[in-house]
């Protein structure tokens, strides 16, 4: 499994709604929001799945962009 730190930037009016939807996804953990409408998210997924899940977030209403701050594939390397 890969683990990624994400910042999800949203419109002001959609912030809470996007956060709620993220919380409902089992592979996403949210860690709070910032004043300028960033949601701090940690995503866990096999690396080949990661971008699909990120795409899913991108399509939520009010999501402007997603930034990646961290990706580790440490345990995937161990599995090899």
């Amino acid at each position, binding site marked *: 499994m890969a683990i990624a730190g994400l910042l999800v930037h949203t419109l002001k009016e959609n912030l809470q709604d996007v956060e709620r939807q993220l919380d409902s996804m089992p592979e996403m953990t949210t860690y709070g929001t910032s004043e300028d409408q960033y949601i701090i998210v*940690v995503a866990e997924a096999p690396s080949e799945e990661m971008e699909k899940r990120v795409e899913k977030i991108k399509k939520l209403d009010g999501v402007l962009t997603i930034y990646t701050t961290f990706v580790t594939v440490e345990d995937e390397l161990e599995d090899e």
Partner: protein
Amino acid sequence: MDITRREFLKYTAASSAFMAIGGPLAFAASKDQTVDHWVKGVCRFCGTGCGVMVGVKNKKVVTVKGDPNNHNAGFLCLKGALMTPIIYAKERITEPLIRKNGKLVPATWDEALNLTASKFKEAIKKYGPTSVAYYGSGQALTEETYLASKIFKAGLKCNNVEGNPRLCMASAVGGYVTTYGKDEPCGSYDDINAATCFFIIGSNTSECHPIIFKKIAARKQADPNVKVIVVDPRKTNTARIADIHVSFKPGTDLAILNAMAYVIIEEELDNYRFHSKYVNFMDNQKNKRTFEDYKKFLEDYTPEKVEKISGVPAETIRKIAKIFAESSATMSLWTMGINQRIRGVWANNLISNLHLLTGHIGKPGATPFSLTGQPNACGGVRDTGGLSHLLPAGRLIKKREHRNEMEELWGLPKDSLNPKPGYHTVALFKALGEGKIKALLILCTNPAQSLPNVNKYRKAMARKDNFIALIECFRDAETVKFADVVFPAAFWCEREGVYGCSERRYSLIGKAIDPPGKCRPTVNILVDLAVRMGVDPKLVPFKNSADVWDEWRKVARPTPYNFWGITRERLRKESGIRWPCPTEDHPGTRIRYVRGEDPNIPKDYKHKYFFYGKPDGKAVIWFRPYKGPAEAPDKDYPFVLTTGRVIDHWHTGTMTMKVPELRRSFPNAYVEINEKDAKKMGIQNGDRVLLETRRDKMVFPARVSDVCRPGLVFVPWFDVNLMINKLTKDAFDPGSKQPEFKICAVRIKKV
């Protein structure tokens, strides 16, 4: 993996995100137990030059995160965060290769080096030093390019030193040099946080420089009065945050920029005090003219006249010109859309004209600012003089005093450097095809995919009577097919060295791990090769890149590029420093040409601005006429073809296609077509569409959308299997010699 360790990783991931937005420190500082150690570096991809931290565990890179202390403040785009699989790609070349009976087979270092050296020596002996050449890259380290350029220019007396930056930003160099007298931007990324208007032209910042786009988007969100103007024939993702997106007939932007100048003067929004004091007006023949002459010149570019040329409503031109001039601080950003044109230098001049006319320069947030495509095109190739007409730190080969200065610094006899500039890139590969270049060394780039009209130059590279040596990391890079020898190079954080990004910032990439197999750092390969070629060992007394860096500091010190204060020790401690930086206690420079900011200007200088690159200290507003593209659409080829990047791939895709996530998001190239055109031709998403230019034809899957304007199609160029550069045109700017990748005529047909 046990749950506790997993939790640690999750906390680290979250804390990196917190740090990126300046979140609570208590959290960010939570003890990091995920890796053995972190090594500071710079992202390997675009010219934004984001700082990264490379996480090493058990001598392997396991993670990459943003450096919170560099300009990107911890942010990375997805490409940057996914570097790890590239380092460990199965395509890595780990031993020297020599072509025997048509196949590349393993060889020893001695065999590969001796063979290459003998081929170069033989060519020089038989045909003279102009029969060999070097083709480098804005991906190589600063030290590597400086050294290669020195070996060829000083050691072999050969000025055929070129590189990918000729394809990428030579026109920006030409623009800065003709307008201000010196290359490189006057402003910095700091300006993004102070600008109140962004004028983005010929740049899809959102996809090509995501972290810069993030800064712009954040600035706009923080202050709703900030205006964003995007001028682009495509409605790109960048255009989607714009207050005004101006679509225009491709190739007519010079007329639009002149029309904006017309409106600024008509509306009396020009800064008369500034331009009467700090600007010379000059016509195309380099004659000094007056402001009144300029007004007269602009009469051909009234918004009404330009509406007919460009298809942009006169009212829109008036509106954007007024916003540009009336905003308190306007920052222009541009890249390949302006540079990759047959009049790219003029287009660059015309952007600067608007800044010099309004005085939007040299104040926080007010600056022209070109973006770079490659991570070290600025710091490596432009600054160190890694092109065929340049010597280090802004010196020119054709100027005798510059050559004499370099001869003294390099310990060469006076007047011993070759005074004749070498071939520029298109001419170099043409000469290769004509059998004039007998031996070519290519470092860290992929011309068999990246050159325009590439079939022609692939044929040149395929000639049996020339010798091509490559310093390369990946065996699937297209150019490897044409190599006679391949030297395996240490990649990215497998050796230490400096990258310099778009904002004159030099940052160090630390060595995090050992290179695999028999790979060696390029500096050592170059030194070894040079000595075997017969270059005086005293010219290359370098054990590693740090030695080269110290010489490069010395060489730049007497010039306005002065970065004597950017020592290796400082680079190890700090996350990047911007030159000029003359002393070790100097913090670096955010704004050039302004007293009190630029250390090249004496503190007691009598005026505020000093454009010291010009003999009288004044910048130039150029009278540059409108000029269309080399190949406009016509009845046989009625569409315009343009090319570019997509967010998840970089350059020829050699690296990004090795990352599963990136590969799957864009597995292959496609043609983007406007929905109206598609409807007319009965083309639907996914249909196979034949593109044909005067050079070649190829079938692409269609993506129908509103991104391209009607009459325009776009194809990304990362895909080696659908190589769009077989269709592009190799016409080039007569000043900068940069080819016009961005426009050629094409016909399209559903197949």
